[in-house]
């Protein structure tokens, strides 16, 4: 804010502080600028008009010496200051002080302090309190002064990229760690030091603390590969089924890691709360948990029974036709029938898309006569259809493409190409009907959840790939840095990649993050 007197306060403000203090200023603020009660708001709505011309716009100001409201646009507040020698007035939109005599707004530290206090008080308990600007405390100022080293992140800086040494078939772990390290919400959480360890007796065993250390390692700017032996040891102790030097499934590791992290966030291995993941507010649940709605419709009475279950990831079938024939079979079948159409048919089956998989996932499925369910409406055993939709979208959506098939007859890998977009809109897969009802039940006093067009849009930020067969192979991953730079991570080697490399790769796990995140 510009000040005439080179940073120091104007003489009229100094005089005001000495004679009457800032109480009047505070009272006007809490009633007409940052209203604390509905009553104050009503009063504000009724009385905030220019006493001279009756306008409600044009930057209204309120005199600090008498009951007078005047607009700035038509010079009424300035004229009032001159004619009545009432120097100071308060801007009713922002709460700043105008000195009509000096002819400018005044910056004063004490005034500013009162302003911030009132603003903070008014926003407490509302949606807006997440946006109060950070003011460093004396302790933090001290820390900043004693640690003068700063790192500037530019669009081409490589901070955050770090290879991981393979400790013997641990690529399944390395690729998931890379994906987690580049999850924006986890990064912000851990780099702002938000984790408070609750595992008091066994802090050395806390996987969340280890994640915190890993983030420090990754974003330290160090370029040599990191050796994640401590992490591996923790994984072995907490998820025993993954222990040993054998090859493991990256998806299995991902789910196991989230599970352990989620448990350690709560600080114990006590399983009593564990059954209620709905009410958990740990960082893992805030970021990864979504709600899947299952509607079972009875075919006799058409009654619908709905349940919502939490999920961390969505496993997608690549399509049933692939189960019956692999590409070799399709080709021979084509020769036998000597029909070109069969070949083209077969080939068109061999590639699919994420959207197709999601459509298949959310379409109504008929539960056959062998799976009759007791209907809660007509109380009889009936055939029914079941449909899955997304009730609550997670902040980070992980899609698992079921490329590994284990059945009684065979085990194998499906290497079908599945196309996936860089930007994904999940609106078509939402539980619309229920959402519609919810919008209506919101009272007018609450924040209106206007459906912005990009509310359900996601961006791709990590892809885990597997090459090789079901028995042996290798995991690598692509991760996104900044807005649009891609890198390929293969254990300790990191190379630059293009978006085309990413979307043409054989994806196994796809990680998307929400583009717009609401403040809590």
């Amino acid at each position, binding site marked *: 804010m510009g*000040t005439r007197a*080179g940073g120091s306060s104007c003489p009229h403000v100094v005089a005001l502080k000495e004679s009457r203090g800032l109480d009047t200023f505070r009272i006007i603020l809490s009633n007409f600028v940052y209203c604390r009660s509905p009553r104050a708001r009503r009063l*504000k*709505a009724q009385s905030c008009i220019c006493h001279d011309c009756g306008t409600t716009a044009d930057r209204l100001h309120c005199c600090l010496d008498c009951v007078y409201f005047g607009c700035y646009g038509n010079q009424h507040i300035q004229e009032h200051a001159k004619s009545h020698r009432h120097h100071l007035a308060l801007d009713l939109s922002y709460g700043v002080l105008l000195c009509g005599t000096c002819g400018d707004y005044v910056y004063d530290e004490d005034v500013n302090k009162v302003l911030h206090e009132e603003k903070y008080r008014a926003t407490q308990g509302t*949606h807006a309190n997440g946006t109060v600007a950070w003011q460093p405390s004396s302790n933090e100022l001290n820390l900043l002064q004693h640690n003068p080293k700063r790192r500037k992140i530019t669009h081409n800086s490589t901070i955050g990229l770090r290879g991981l040494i393979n400790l013997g078939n641990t690529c399944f772990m390395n690729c998931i760690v890379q994906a987690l390290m580049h999850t924006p919400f986890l990064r912000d959480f851990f780099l702002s030091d938000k984790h408070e360890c609750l595992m008091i007796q066994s802090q050395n065993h806390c996987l969340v603390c280890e994640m915190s250390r890993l983030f420090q390692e990754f974003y330290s700017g160090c370029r040599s590969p990191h050796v994640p032996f401590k992490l591996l040891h923790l994984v072995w102790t907490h998820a025993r089924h993954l222990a040993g030097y054998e090859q493991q499934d990256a998806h299995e590791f991902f789910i196991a890691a989230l599970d352990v992290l989620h448990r350690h966030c709560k600080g114990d291995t006590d399983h009593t709360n564990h059954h209620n993941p709905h009410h958990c507010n740990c960082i893992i649940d805030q970021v990864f948990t979504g709600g899947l709605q299952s509607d079972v419709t009875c075919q006799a009475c058409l009654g619908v029974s709905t349940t919502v279950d939490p999920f961390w990831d969505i496993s997608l079938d690549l399509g049933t036709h692939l189960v019956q024939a692999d590409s070799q079979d399709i080709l021979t079948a084509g020769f036998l029938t000597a029909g070109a159409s069969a070949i083209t048919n077969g080939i068109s089956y061999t590639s699919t898309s994420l959207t197709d998989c999601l459509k298949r996932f959310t379409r109504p499925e008929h539960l056959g006569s062998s799976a009759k369910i007791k209907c809660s409406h007509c109380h009889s055993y009936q055939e029914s259809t079941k449909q899955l939709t997304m009730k609550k979208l997670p902040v980070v959506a992980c899609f698992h493409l079921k490329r590994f098939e284990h059945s009684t007859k065979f085990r194998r890998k499906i290497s079908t190409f599945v196309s996936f977009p860089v930007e994904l809109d999940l609106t078509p897969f939402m539980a619309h009907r229920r959402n519609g009802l919810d919008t209506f039940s919101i009272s007018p006093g609450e924040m209106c959840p*206007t459906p912005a067009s990009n509310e359900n849009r996601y961006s791709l930020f990590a892809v885990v790939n597997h090459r090789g067969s079901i028995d042996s192979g290798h995991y690598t991953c692509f991760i996104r840095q900044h807005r649009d730079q891609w890198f390929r991570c293969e254990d300790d080697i990191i190379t630059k990649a293009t978006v085309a490399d990413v979307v043409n790769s054989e994806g196994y796990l796809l990680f998307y993050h929400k583009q717009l995140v609401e*403040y809590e």
Partner: protein
Amino acid sequence: MADQERRIKDAQMRATINQKLVETGERERLKEVLRTKLIECGWRDQLKAHCKDVVKQKGLEHITVDELVAEITPKGRALVPDSVKKELLQRIRHFLAQQSNI
């Protein structure tokens, strides 16, 4: 005559809407949304940098808030992304649609 009547009616309507927005607290919420969006899209940083340039150029002693506002307003208006304007308009429409007694 009809023209003038309409003008008076418009002004009355504007006053009523404004009163409703203030009374319900919606105006403050909209302001907060706008503030957040403008920070998110970098508008605030851009404008702040511009303000600094203007102040440096003219000298702190020789500029008032009014002059600074006049100087940066054209750029400030032009830099607001269309998506932000659209969303705010949508929110205002949504709010008005909920008010049955206007």
